[in-house]
């Protein structure tokens, strides 16, 4: 191939102006490496194109550059920072005064924001749970008191039940003789019952209705054997049935109001109730 002919065939212009097809471009680029005159021709045409374009230059609108910079604003700032970071090592310059808004800084912002939100939420929850705790605490105390009260009630009821149960046991015993002591004239409101075990000779008294003993006084049970009174014990502040003294013999049981601790002989003026033992 004659290179001079090739160069003057118009291929150079075609190539530079972008009018050559792929095959022509490939051919030229291959020949170019072997023939520096091809490159020279290309350079020459490019230079003349450039010169011609500069000779015909038209001033752009003054706003075009502003619009361009505005359009590239984000990219320009980003690239500049990247470049500054990249060249910091090579240049001995002061550290950038402005903090570089990097991804990690953004991340830190998000983390900081998240921490604040978490802190506020946690504080609110603390208050909420503290109130809840106080309320619960009060409820627990109230429930404990209630429980104690119920426990006491229960104990009382159990004690009472025990007495009643005992009394029932006593009353239903076939060996026990029941002696109803009725109020004497003037003391008709009073009533007491003696349960006397004929085998063991134990004596129990149930004060059905007895006027409360005045201060310093106490009721005393008497067993009368052939008209002779025998002390059968003092009625203490027992609930229900009170066990008194074992009594071997008795025709009549009677209760008198005596001085506290009892008397050797009954004060008959203070007789309250009396009942015959039915044999």
């Amino acid at each position, binding site marked *: 191939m004659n290179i001079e002919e090739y160069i003057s065939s118009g291929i150079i212009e075609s190539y530079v102006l*972008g009018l050559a097809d792929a095959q022509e471009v490939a051919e030229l680029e291959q020949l170019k490496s072997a023939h520096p005159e091809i490159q020279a021709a290309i350079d020459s045409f490019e230079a003349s194109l450039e010169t011609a374009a500069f000779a015909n230059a*038209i001033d752009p*609108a003054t706003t075009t550059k502003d619009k361009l910079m505005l359009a590239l604003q984000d990219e320009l700032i980003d690239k500049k920072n990247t470049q500054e970071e990249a060249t910091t090592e090579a240049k001995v310059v002061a550290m950038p005064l402005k903090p570089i808004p990097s991804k990690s800084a953004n991340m830190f912002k998000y983390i900081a924001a998240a921490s604040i939100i978490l802190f506020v939420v946690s504080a609110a929850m603390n208050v909420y749970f503290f109130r809840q705790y106080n309320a619960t605490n009060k409820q627990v105390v109230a429930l404990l008191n209630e429980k104690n009260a119920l426990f006491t009630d229960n104990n009382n009821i159990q004690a009472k039940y025990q007495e009643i149960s005992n009394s029932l046991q006593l009353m239903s015993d076939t060996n026990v003789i029941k002696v109803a002591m009725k109020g004497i004239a003037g003391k008709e409101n009073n009533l007491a019952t003696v349960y006397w075990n004929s085998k063991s000779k134990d004596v129990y008294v149930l004060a059905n209705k007895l006027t409360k003993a005045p201060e310093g006084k106490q009721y005393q049970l008497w067993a009368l054997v052939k008209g002779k009174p025998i002390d059968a014990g003092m009625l203490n502040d027992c609930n229900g049935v009170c066990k008194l003294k074992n009594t071997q013999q008795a025709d009549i049981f009677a209760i008198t109001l005596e001085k506290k601790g009892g008397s050797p002989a009954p004060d008959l003026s203070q007789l309250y109730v009396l009942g015959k033992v039915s044999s």
Partner: protein
Amino acid sequence: MRHHLTYQYSLEAVKKYSETELVLLLKQRDQTAYSYLYDNYSGALLSVIHNIVSEVELANDVLQEVFIKIWRQIESYDDTKGRLFTWMLNISRNASIDTVRSKAYQNSQQNQELTAIKQDSAGSTQLPVDQIGLRKVVHQLREEYRVLVELAYFQGYTQDEIAKMLGIPLGTVKTRLRNALIQLRTVIKE
């Protein structure tokens, strides 16, 4: 890096950077170099764009688009394939042809023509805005060459398309276009 710069002086303007340095700085995303590039090359590139896009405002829009492309695509510029200006010229030409071929432009062009006819009938003078720079040179070519350069270079048709369009063999299109370009070079160099 700046202190290594050699200053090139020409009669027209003081060039701050050599082309090699300018390319190097642009590839490093140097804003100052980019600003310099715009200040020094926008006028020449606008003349290239204006050869294809006749409306001044639209041509300025294309110029902006071209410089955005230059900024974003500078990495792909290979200085072994040609000068920086040639690379930018081709970007300008392609962007201009794309604009002219766009539907929006075609529609506005029809309206423009109607307006132009009205203005003409009203007696106003239309400036031959297209007859500057390279296009002016092309206008000096023989008619058969002129049409080919017009279609191939300014309107971006492939030689195959031109052959079909004009009803002449592809070989003839190739030969004529080559001849046209040889003449063009002669005129430009004068």
